[in-house]
């Protein structure tokens, strides 16, 4: 089956899109109204409270606990450089409303791209088919919750002409080649989007937000003595255009080049169980994947997570505290308000080794009789919200990095990981280590690459025996969580920490047999 390339849809988008009727603010040179609560959908699309009330009443016309409307207008852009030329420009416009009827843990969902009353009522009627009872009343008035502003937007991407963005990529290209004569190819890209949302709920909440996201990346191939290695690095998050300075460009180029060059000396570690030290920052993806998903409340209310019987119990050593946080400034997972209208907040998941909270949306919060934690998130209006992580991190402890590595004895040190996956019910996970080091006799030695590490999330958490005081967050913008096929930006962080034992999937059996 042939479709419009989804990759291009996602990467892409429009500096300008179809300006005249739909996108009045995107005409050349005009800056956006960048206030998060500026009645945008009312002003631009005529979505007033009377109409919202009518749609919600339709969604609850056959009963249900509550209903909500999720309006979205997203403009995204992608510029790409290849062979020294910025020669790719892709764009996408996403506009529509998703209408949800909820009864207990059941969901009826309809959506439409047309913000006409007729189309929206039809989507509401689809959602209403979930129930077959008497109508549920809708709140007569709507109030706006107090929300923070964790990603102020001063220079909106859509107000910046493409010709201003082009030099960023040209500079990355030049810097990468200047950093080493061994660089053979450079690809660079700048992806950014501005999403406007409005959530209206039948119990009387109305919330709006404007959410910037994006990242700039370099992907390089290096050649040495007939061998090639590749590397990728990006920086971004919920930033506006002012973030992408020379310093950021420098960091991206330098990290991509250095990471590629070091791989020429990399070896495959022995296969089997061994101590693993997780370096700070990007390795926090393990925390997200191997541990955080198991704490998402939908898996627990369905009793399919290994953590479903662990609330209030010890799951880790007392020095371990894990937080899922919407309130970090400018990180990829930060949220002023979630996609159900709950203000962004900070949630302690594990406090001093005790599991204290799951990650909730409205449905699971009601199930457990707790307040929603503001984790109801969705990819876009075509999807209903589910509990999702935001910025998930573990606080540092008192050990020094040197002591953590020394304590490992013989094992591996993980610097960069990707392609993680977890089996929620078993808790088993696997991660691809794109870069790391051997640890021999308590010291970092040869670089390693291209191996999986595997283990069991809850066991790994219980087996973290030491942590340093160097918590570092992931400042990339390319981190996407893909739960249930819905991509949402996330961030994560970890201090250097020692896991007593994980399986390392090399090609060499211990002792050298291959």
């Amino acid at each position, binding site marked *: 089956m042939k479709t*419009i390339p989804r990759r291009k849809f996602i990467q892409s988008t429009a500096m300008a899109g179809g300006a005249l009727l739909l996108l009045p603010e995107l005409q050349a040179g005009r800056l956006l109204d960048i206030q998060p609560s500026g009645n945008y959908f009312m002003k631009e699309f005529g979505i007033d409270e009377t109409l919202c009330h009518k749609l919600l009443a339709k969604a609850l016309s056959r009963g249900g606990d509550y209903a909500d409307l999720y309006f979205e207008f997203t403009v995204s852009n992608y510029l790409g450089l290849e062979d020294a030329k910025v020669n790719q420009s892709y764009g*996408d416009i996403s506009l529509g409303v998703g209408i949800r009827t909820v009864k207990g843990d059941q969901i009826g*969902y309809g959506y439409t791209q047309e913000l006409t009353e007729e189309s929206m009522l039809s989507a509401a009627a689809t959602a209403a088919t979930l129930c077959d009872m008497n109508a549920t009343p809708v709140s007569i008035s709507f109030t706006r919750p107090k929300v923070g502003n964790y990603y102020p937007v001063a220079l909106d991407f859509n107000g910046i002409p493409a010709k201003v963005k082009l030099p960023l990529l040209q500079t990355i290209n030049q810097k990468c080649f200047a950093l080493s004569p061994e660089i053979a190819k450079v690809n660079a890209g700048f992806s950014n989007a501005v999403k406007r949302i409005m959530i209206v709920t039948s119990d009387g909440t109305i919330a709006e937000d404007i959410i910037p996201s994006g990242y700039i990346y370099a992907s390089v191939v290096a050649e040495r003595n007939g061998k090639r290695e590749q590397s990728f690095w990006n920086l971004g998050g919920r930033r506006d255009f002012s973030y992408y300075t020379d310093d950021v460009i420098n960091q991206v180029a330098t990290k991509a080049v250095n990471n590629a060059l070091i791989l020429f000396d990399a070896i495959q570690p022995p296969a089997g169980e061994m101590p693993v030290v997780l370096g700070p920052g990007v390795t926090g993806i393990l925390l997200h994947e191997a541990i955080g998903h198991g704490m998402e409340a939908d898996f627990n209310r369905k009793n399919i997570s290994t953590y479903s019987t662990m609330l209030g119990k010890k799951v880790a050593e007392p020095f371990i505290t894990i937080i899922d946080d919407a309130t970090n400034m400018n990180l990829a997972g930060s949220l002023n308000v979630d996609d159900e209208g709950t203000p962004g907040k900070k949630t302690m998941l594990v406090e001093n080794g005790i599991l204290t909270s799951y990650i909730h949306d409205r449905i699971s919060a009601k199930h457990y009789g707790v307040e929603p934690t503001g984790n109801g998130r969705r990819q876009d209006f075509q999807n209903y919200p589910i509990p999702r992580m935001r910025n998930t991190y573990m606080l540092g402890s008192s050990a020094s990095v040197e002591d953590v590595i020394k304590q490992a004895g013989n094992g591996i040190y993980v610097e960069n990981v990707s392609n993680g996956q977890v089996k929620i019910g078993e808790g088993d996970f696997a991660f691809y280590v794109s870069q790391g080091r051997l640890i021999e006799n308590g010291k970092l030695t040869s670089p390693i690459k*291209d191996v999986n590490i595997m283990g069991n999330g809850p066991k790994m958490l219980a087996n973290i025996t030491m942590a340093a005081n160097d918590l570092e967050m992931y400042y990339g913008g390319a981190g996407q969580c893909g739960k249930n096929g819905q991509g949402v930006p996330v961030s994560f962080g970890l201090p250097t920490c020692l896991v007593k034992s994980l399986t390392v999937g090399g090609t060499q059996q211990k002792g050298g047999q291959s």
Partner: protein
Amino acid sequence: MSFKKDQQQEFRELANWVIDQAKQAGANDCRVNISKRRSVEINYRDRKPEVIKEATTQGLYLEVFINNRFAGRSTPDFRKLTLSGFITDLIDNALIMEEDPFRTLPDPKYYAGRSTTDLQLADPAQAQLTPEERHAMAKAVEDACLQQGGSKVISVEAGESDDTYEEFIKSSNGFEGSARSTYCNVGASMTAQDEGDRRPAGYHYIGCRYRSDLPSLQEIGKTAANRTLDLMGGKKIATETLPVILENRGAARVLSGLLNPMSGGSIQQKRSFLADKKDQTFGSKLLTVQDDPFLLRGLGSRLYDEDGFPAKKRDLIIEGRVNEFLIDWYYSRKLGWEPTSGGISNLIIPPGTRSIDDIIKDLGRCILVTDYIGGNSNSTTGDFSVGIIGKLFDKGQFVQNVAEMNIADNHLKFWNKLVEVGNDPWIYSQARFPSLVFDGVVVAGI
């Protein structure tokens, strides 16, 4: 949704208008893709509907080419007044791009020779599917799974989803193509209570173009339960070198590591460990991979590719030798090579003669890989590493289920270890692969 009688004509008229507007606004050339999709999803859990979802979406994707400059954009808004602004802005964007002499529409001579075969991609019966029938399908699968899972069941989710899709593509230099298709997917996932806190989850979903090609709903639900029960007690064993069988349905997870390096983009960008292997043998004689776009009702079947080139059946790898790369128009120009086709349709590995059960009996100690977790394949070096889940056998006798284990190798070595191909191609996929048997694989565990 049934296909609207005059939909193609509406799309054609809109495409013509868009192309005229784009050319008037300054485009030398352009290509427009207009599509519409109707999706329905019904999911059951605990014998009640968990999710009912339904919607229609549409998209218009326009690419413009101006003096060796290029830009592409998509929009869901088909109103002409809005599209006018969309087109002029797109052209303004293209003009800002740097010149790239290779970025053009294909030479129209490559459009010629398209088959008119009816690939049977659209099931006329799908339009008659009622909400009640959809609910009944999901419930039947759930019932069968619950019954088979018995006391071990913690949770079962069963669902039916279907798609009706229609597209029209036209370029300013003579390509015109249209396609209609349907897709129906039914299945279940089950979570079971294992020892301690382990709750293994297995699944079985079947997708096909025609609903009548689905196996019985009872069989689907029962298989979902059986595949979950097969995970019970899964544990890692000591790291060992032994034969490994990649079960048919998942074999593409490992073989896909060969496809990216065969693409023109990877080759031209020096990210391919196969770039210098054209016409060279890198794998076992048992490794033959065909690309067949003409399979009736095939999930990857098509009459034209992304560039508008006519679909053709081809041998990508013959007996371990790289026979044809995946070269699209753009990278053919950059490489100075003839284009082949940049995309794949249905991939086929010709089946062998023996069943997996028979093969396992002869293998001694071996692991049948039934699922994967995580992992990656490095297209530049050929190194790959992937987590595996499966079953350990000894001389045909089941020993235990295995989990938390890993295989890693380099593709240039790994495919030489292919020693037999099963007789069981998995037909519910774009990758119709039989089970693949490898000897001497390091499986990492304890």
